[in-house]
């Protein structure tokens, strides 16, 4: 009787599930814009030689500095960056830009400017900055060449040649 009881129960349960037609669960798709707090920073992503995540893997620096690029970089800075970043060491909303070209690789800087959200979500150094500043850096939608011009301006600001 015990066995039959079990059998009956199983059949009933099966029937119940079947006839209610619960549709098969599709695996939850992983979204690209995941809540940053849910992601553990990768162990070595914060290293000083990190290039970050994005399309820039090899930025060629030229010497001496390109004056035209610097001028364009300044005008972009004035409109899109200067509200939050000082040119000194002082942190305003974001960190001051003094010595940023020593702290970060050119690739990391340009990736952070152009691929801001993914960097904040995945890059350990960017995440560490978020914890300090408490504001996600906005993606200001700079074109690639504008990002490069801003980088040239940062180099000038750091006394590079």
């Amino acid at each position, binding site marked *: *009787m015990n066995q039959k*009881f079990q059998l009956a129960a199983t059949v009933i349960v099966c*029937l119940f599930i079947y006839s209610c037609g619960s549709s098969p669960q599709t695996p939850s798709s992983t979204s690209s814009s995941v809540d940053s707090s849910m992601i553990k920073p990768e162990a070595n992503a914060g290293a000083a030689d990190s290039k970050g995540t994005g399309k820039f893997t090899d930025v060629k620096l030229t010497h001496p500095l390109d004056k035209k690029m610097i001028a364009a970089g300044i005008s972009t800075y*004035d*409109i*899109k960056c200067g509200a939050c970043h000082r040119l000194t060491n002082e942190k305003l*909303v974001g960190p001051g830009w003094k010595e940023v070209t020593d702290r970060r690789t050119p690739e990391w800087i340009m990736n952070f400017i152009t691929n801001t959200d993914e960097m904040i979500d995945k890059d350990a150094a960017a995440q560490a900055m978020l914890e300090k500043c408490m504001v996600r850096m906005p993606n*200001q939608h700079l074109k690639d060449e504008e990002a490069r011009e801003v980088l040239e301006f940062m180099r000038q600001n750091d006394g590079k040649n």
Partner: protein
Amino acid sequence: MKQISLALGTVAVIAFLQSCKMKSAESAVKGDAAEKAYVAPGKYDEYYNFVSGGFSGQVSVYGLPSGRLLKVIPVFSVFPENGYGYSEETKPMLNTTNGEVPWDDQHHLDLSQTNGEQDGRWLFANANNTPRVARIDLTTFKTMEIIQIPNSAGNHSSPFITENTEYVVAGTRFSVPMGEEDVAISSFKKNFHSTASFISVDKTSGHMNIAFQIVLPGMNLDLSHAGKGPSHDWFFFSSYNTEQAYTLLEVNASQKDKDYIIAVNWKKAEEYAKAGKGKKIPAEYAHNTFDESKQTATSVIEKEVLLLDPKDCPGMVYMIPCPKSPHGCDIDPTGEYIVGSGKLAALIPVFSYTKITNAIQNKQFEGDFYGIPIIKYEAALHGEVQKPGLGPLHTEFDGKGNAYTSMFLSSEVVKWSIKDLKVLDRVPTYYSVGHLMIPGGDTKKPWGKYLVAYNKITKDRFLPTGPELAQSAQLYDISGDKMQLILDYPTIGEPHYAQAIPASMLKDKQVKYFDISKNQNEFVSMGEKKTNVVRQGNRVDVYMTAIRSHLTPDNIEGVYVGDEVYFHVTNLEQDWDIPHGFAIKNSTAADLLIMPGETLTMKFTPQKKGIYPFYCTDFCSALHQEMSGYLRVSLKGSSVPLKFSTGVIADATENK
């Protein structure tokens, strides 16, 4: 053992019934309705549904089939939520020849078309009370243009468009004298006219202009639709009160067995206008346009309009008798059949375009109405749908040869076959349906999967909310032979007509933010360095920027009681969905909601001395609560100098 099995079986059946919620016999909703209307979290709807707001004056946007409210687009009413009609940039949009009109009654919508099919460029909206037509851009969901209609009142049969959006029409529900004549109301027959205005639409910019107005005898034009395909050159208007009553219309305008469908050959009208058959008369009307590059509206008062009189333009207008006080006037996707819904008739007359043209050719007329030939009813008639229900109002089409008519009195939607005029199906609505809408259902290419009924009476459909209830909309699946009710949802204001378009035609071309480098607003601050405070007499211009999470300048002093302070706030963000708000204590304007890359201006006239905090009203970041500042207002004549800053901390000894 047997007993136990039986008991188990019973329990199982009960459990099964319970958890699957089998429907009782009286329920109108079938088991799979929820599944059909369900759009899972994170998934998109199939259609954008634009719904007129009626007495709200706005247009709301829903997703179908979920019935989710996506947006309210401010059009004819001020909108404190984002400052529409309050900000200096948008005030001119609501300007008229009678100054700023803060409200209207928004009835009908029409999506722009090319070759009779939706093209997803613009949405047109009418204002019934102070006659106007608006054009909304479908990449920004913003009202870009509003044109006032002179010689008009009760702009009801509007804003329906021709097949290639050549024209938007505006027809008068209330006849009035031309111009602003002061005449006795009882001189209606002599002095009152209805007009049908044709507003041309520029193919590229969408810019509207009143091309001509056709002057018609005094009567009430109700609704309209353009011909398509073979009937491309024609526009059809329904009319009531051809009795020409001016009091107790309820009785006095319901005397005749038939009123008219008015057939206007707009191509011919166009030719007559070009040939100089019209008469230019002085007529003032406001023409308001919003320039996206300057993010600023301007209002121009136009001075004249071209009138066409049917007497001077033979072959331009014909009257077709239609029982009885017809309301809807709808053309099937082939362009051959014209459905007049006689709201007081117990039948639906369907006219044939071929028969109408034959009747005109063979002069099958039965007299004239103020000189306009009346085509014989039988000569124009394709046939009548017998006993469809009570109070037929509006008809839409599914593109499969079927028509769907709303029945106001009998609260139902009736599906019938255009060819043989047989009723095929009927479903109840809850309650007293007015307009109905099938996506693309008034075009050559209806999408035909859903039908929405917009009901006038809600009663017991939702949780009660005091005397005023939200109007109910009902979504039906019409993909099968039988219509199936799948969703009920409340709407904003009082929806009249609506439109819907596949999401795929709009979603990928949405503007996400405005490129700040292209911002040509006169008062833009191109970066924080350009912020400033400038006094000229008692006018103070504050050039301010907003970015997460501060306003610059955030300390302003040296403003006096009675000054006119203009806060020009530029949002420096260049990222989607990061608007900033701006509000200042005791302001009599509304909030500003500034999209990324945009500049908006609030005028503030402080009445009393004191400290006025201002802040960002849109929760923008973790430091949003910190995004604030102070304005110091001193008495007039005080010596406090004009001063502004951000991040400057006074010397500790200064205030000792």
